[in-house]
């Protein structure tokens, strides 16, 4: 049994400033198995991989690798060292050189090849390609191959380095079905050769198709290790999301059931689609209603709300605001109609790092007021001061660059930016991600308070409990399509998970 | 938004077209009984001098004078080499070259010799054996400098405090025109107040002279290595209220024979302008005619006949005849 284990990680802990990324995590990989590493975003999957491959040093814990039949502790300090030990990683994005040949890509920059014997290299590459049944020629330029084949070449490169552990980090996300099938047959082949494969993916179907075991992480902690056949999908989802199926007791239903009135919806879209959200969808929200989009990451929930705000280029659909036909083609149109949008990726789309908290807060209102009508310094300070106090934003001063604030306070500042515009409809995409628990609760309270004041809100959160607590209607998405809508009594964890998993309730 | 994009595209296209239009090359017509000549030169945009040089060759080597001409202009030696080789392959009778760089031509000229193509060098010498070309018609920058310095000495000024404004360091013209003056500085007949490069830039020349004026040092000669820099220097003198030229406090010397510069000399604002003749075409034309008639050339290296005009002798007719540009 012991000889079966190729890699064993024990009690791994790792902290980043302010975040506990991993806490006493165990992980075991056996020879010739495909082992899925599962968890929502931020669960610690990539940190675990990075500790294993020496990108990050671990804070505590031990890593053992099977070397010549016995487990020995290893201390990996760099990805290069990991490769030499037989731990290879293939990332989602191809990290090869597209303008070199397949053979060159397989051999260049490796080990002690300081001189290159081109003929030998080509011959060896051809052998490996043949052995692994990869449909590429050694002399072909890499970028003339399909993405899947490129991915396979990356794997071939890894495999040839006498690898014991192969880590595949979301290799399938840009592949079509056929390509996935081809990749899987290669993985099975490697498995038969005794390579231990760690497979990271967001696609549940693929896990069930090819994996032997699943390790689930949540919030940096180990949830458990399971045999695939013992773990139905619904249970896997609940383990990833952190809710036991039966545990629905402590939840408090949102009191804010939007009353059915004759008033037209605040916002209504028919057949809305954008370049990133090609499946047209219908959507409406009433005054004071809080609803939410739910689904696993990549299910299309963010893309849908981005389409509502016209953050991506709109390709179709009719919009009515308070019953009146309007055109919303760009974010500024949406803003003019009283829509606010707090984006999912705070760093990329939310904050303006180098600018002050004050400038970050007034930004949206300033844009609405117009290019030629800047707020005076006094006005801007009054606005900023009001919301810094109202939301309890912790900052040295309003002139502090926003990048030096904590994540939660940055998020509050962005929230303040939109509250300042006095929106009638506010879209909050993951407002609670990556911030401390106290602020999470504050934000949820604020959502409910705003709704009471008549603001319509769309709320998206990876934490299902938050959505159950705040939303009166949930739109469930899977594979970029709306697959269900739950209201009132239907809104239970159970139902949500079943709907997400695509099984009959 | 869409219209804006289209507008943007049209704008870009229009600009691209205008770029292409001004880069279009000349083509030559076919006609029998003409002497085929290939000319390899630097592009006319290099300088006013070069523009006059190119224009001169275009004027002399015309169909009316019995030539069928192909031209190639580049600042790059390797492109010039390729073009020259191409002209040889095309079977020209004469190859006229003003080389971008002095080295690397032996091979091409040997090929020309084998193919029976006669080579003339103009404007610039190159590092090759003299047997490889018929004749070279070149300017001697140092001789120009000497002419200016000699003229200056002939003025018998009580003292010579010279502000020397140099061209771009390392260029032929700078090296040639600096040397005779440096000799005077070295033997003490003239005093070097300032010697500074303005990289042929008029505005920089003005700043340099301003700086001398601000320092309060005495000077009575400005020796600028081209007309533009002399003009910049004079602008600085004007602003400081210092007189110059004929009967002025400061002697102004420029080079190149731009028409506007000669007019300054005629007006007495400057004292001297020295020619750097871009006109080599006539001399080469004469030599080709000699060869065509079966004659022999007597000179291997022909130095351009160059002259100067000072404010006492220049006439409007001189400007019209020798000035370049307008």
């Amino acid at each position, binding site marked *: 049994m012991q000889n079966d284990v190729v890699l064993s990680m024990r009690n791994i802990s790792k902290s980043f400033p302010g975040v506990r990324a991993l806490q006493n995590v165990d992980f075991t990989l056996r020879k010739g198995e495909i082992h899925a590493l599962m968890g929502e975003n931020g669960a610690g999957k990539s940190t675990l991989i990075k500790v294993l491959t020496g990108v990050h040093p671990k804070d505590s814990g031990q890593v053992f690798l099977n070397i010549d039949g016995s487990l020995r502790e290893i201390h990996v300090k760099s990805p290069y060292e990991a490769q030499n030990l037989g731990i290879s990683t293939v990332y989602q994005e191809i990290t090869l050189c597209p303008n070199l040949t397949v053979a060159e890509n397989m051999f260049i920059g490796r080990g002690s090849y300081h001189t290159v014997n081109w003929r030998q290299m080509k011959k060896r590459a051809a052998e490996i390609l043949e052995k692994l049944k990869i449909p590429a020629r050694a002399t072909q330029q890499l970028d003339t191959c399909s993405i899947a084949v490129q991915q396979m070449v990356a794997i071939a490169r890894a495999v040839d380095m006498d690898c014991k552990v192969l880590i595949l980090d979301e290799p399938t996300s840009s592949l079509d079905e056929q390509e996935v099938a081809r990749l899987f047959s290669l993985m099975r082949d490697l498995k038969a050769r005794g390579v231990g494969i760690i497979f990271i993916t967001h696609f549940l179907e693929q896990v069930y198709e090819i994996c032997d075991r699943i390790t689930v992480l949540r919030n940096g902690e180990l949830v458990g290790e399971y045999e695939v056949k013992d773990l139905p999908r619904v249970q896997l989802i609940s383990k990833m999301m952190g809710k036991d199926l039966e545990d629905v007791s402590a939840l408090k239903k949102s009191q804010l059931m939007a009353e059915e009135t004759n008033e037209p919806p605040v916002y209504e879209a028919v057949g809305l689609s954008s370049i990133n959200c090609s499946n047209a969808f219908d959507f409406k929200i009433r005054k004071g209603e809080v609803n939410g989009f739910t689904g696993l990451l990549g299910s299309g929930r963010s893309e849908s709300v981005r389409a509502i705000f016209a953050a991506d280029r709109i390709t179709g659909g009719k919009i009515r605001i308070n019953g009146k036909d309007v055109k919303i083609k760009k974010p500024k149109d949406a803003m003019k109609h009283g829509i606010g949008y707090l984006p999912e990726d705070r760093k*990329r789309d939310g904050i*303006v790092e180098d*600018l002050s908290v004050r400038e970050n807060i007034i930004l949206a209102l300033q844009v609405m007021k117009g290019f030629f009508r800047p707020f005076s310094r006094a006005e801007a300070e009054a606005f900023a001061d009001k919301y810094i106090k109202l939301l309890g934003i912790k900052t040295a001063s309003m002139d502090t660059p926003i990048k030096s604030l904590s994540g939660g306070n940055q998020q509050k500042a962005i929230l303040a930016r939109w509250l300042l515009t006095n929106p009638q409809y506010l879209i909050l995409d993951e407002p609670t991600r990556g911030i401390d628990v106290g602020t999470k609760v504050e934000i949820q309270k604020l959502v409910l308070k705003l709704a009471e004041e008549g603001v319509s809100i769309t709320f998206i959160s990876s934490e299902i409990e938050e959505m159950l607590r705040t939303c009166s209607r949930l739109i469930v998405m899977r594979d970029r399509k709306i697959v269900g809508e739950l209201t009132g009594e239907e809104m239970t964890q159970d139902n949500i998970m079943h709907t997400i998993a695509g099984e009959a309730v | 938004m869409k219209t804006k994009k289209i507008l943007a595209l049209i704008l*870009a296209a229009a600009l691209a077209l205008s770029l292409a239009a001004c880069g279009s090359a000349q083509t030559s017509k076919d006609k029998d009984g003409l002497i085929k000549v290939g000319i390899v030169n630097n592009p006319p*945009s290099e300088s006013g001098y070069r523009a006059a040089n*190119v224009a001169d060759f275009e004027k002399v080597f015309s169909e009316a004078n019995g030539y069928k001409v192909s031209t190639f202009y580049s600042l790059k030696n390797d492109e010039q080499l390729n073009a020259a080789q191409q002209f040889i392959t095309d079977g020209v009778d004469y190859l006229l070259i003003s080389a971008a760089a002095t080295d690397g031509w032996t091979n091409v000229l040997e090929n020309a010799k084998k193919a029976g193509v006669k080579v003339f060098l103009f404007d610039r010498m190159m590092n090759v054996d003299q047997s490889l070309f018929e004749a070279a018609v070149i300017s001697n920058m140092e001789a120009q400098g000497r002419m200016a310095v000699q003229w200056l000495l002939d003025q018998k000024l009580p003292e010579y405090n010279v502000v020397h404004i140099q061209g771009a360091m390392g260029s032929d013209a700078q090296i040639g025109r600096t040397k005779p003056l440096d000799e005077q500085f070295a033997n003490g007949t003239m005093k070097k107040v300032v010697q500074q490069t303005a990289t042929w830039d008029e505005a920089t020349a003005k700043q340099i002279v301003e700086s001398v004026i601000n320092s309060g040092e005495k000077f009575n000669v400005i020796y600028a290595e081209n007309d533009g820099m002399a003009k910049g220097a004079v602008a600085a003198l004007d602003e400081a209220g210092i007189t110059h030229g004929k009967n002025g406090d400061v002697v102004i010397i420029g080079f190149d024979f731009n028409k506007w510069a000669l007019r300054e000399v005629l007006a007495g604002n400057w004292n001297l302008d020295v020619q750097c003749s871009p006109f080599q075409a006539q001399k080469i034309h004469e030599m080709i005619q000699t060869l065509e008639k079966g004659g022999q050339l007597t000179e291997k290296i022909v130095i351009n006949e160059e002259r100067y005009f000072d404010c006492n002798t220049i006439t409007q007719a001189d400007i019209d005849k020798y000035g370049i540009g307008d």
Partner: protein
Amino acid sequence: MGSLFKKMARSQLAIPLFALFLLVVFNLIRDPEFFSITIATNNDGNAVLSGNLISILNGASAIAILSIGMTLITSSCKGQDISVAAVAAIAGSVFVSVLRANEITIPVFLLAFLLSCVVSVLFSLFNGVLVAVFKIQPMIATLILFSAGRSIAYWINGGATPTVSSPLLTSIGGFIPGIPIPTPILIMVIFLILITLVLRFTNLGLYTQVVGINEGTAHLNGISPVWIKLIAFIISGVCVATAGCITVCRIGLINHETLLLDAEMDVILAVAIGGNALSGGKFNLYGSVIGAYIIQALTVTLYAMKVPSAAVKAYKAIVIILIVVCSSPVVKDFVVRMYKKMFKKQPEKEVQAKAA
């Protein structure tokens, strides 16, 4: 005192101002008369100011004006326009062509300037469209006009270096009769006031910085990055035309090969010396302008010291490297740390003093 020092050390303008200060002190030690200003009568019979200080302010005006546009482009596009000098040659050529085709009167002069502005803005927009719409890196996009610009100017000039002369030109390039300050300095001041007003009464500064720091956020907050970038190029176009025309007026001649020769590098340097990140984002226009004056002060200093021609560029490079290195975050942090170490004891002393 301590907090003031810290504020000073952190301020973007600290290093450039300090460098300027050092240059001034250096020159004063070398020659106490260096900055003396005298009144002279020029050859047109006007009383005018002269002296090294005037030379510096005057000589830097073209670079300073160009640096305004360059700062905006740098901030919003995260890159530099290396074609400014070449486009200035085009603008200057247009200016001269119009002047030469007509009798030079004030309306003709204004028309010539306006036309050169239009042409310059169009060429600048060509760059802008490549950068903003087609998302080509600014240096690559502007490389086209960097190499082709002077040829276009050559073509406009018909291959010559045409001259123009008129008292009107002299009063723009030199002195307006009755005003003892060189006109280019006045034009620079007008530009500075104008741009200050623009920054004060529009959101140009805020939008430009937002676009430069985070285009995603700009887009989601209703700011169009494309338009902001194009505006930067338009403003730069006006600056380029002005700089080109001033330079033409100074000498009364357009030489497409040497007009503002290598100015693009000086302008980019001015922006960098002014403490602006060449990778875009936050900017301080006044820093760039100070940067331009530093470069010119350095040049004039080197002339005054009679540094040999061949060595001028090397000396310039050394000083500029020193300034840029000193303003790097690494050195700044080091200075702040050293300051803390050196003055740590001071508060204790104060406490003791109070106790006593």
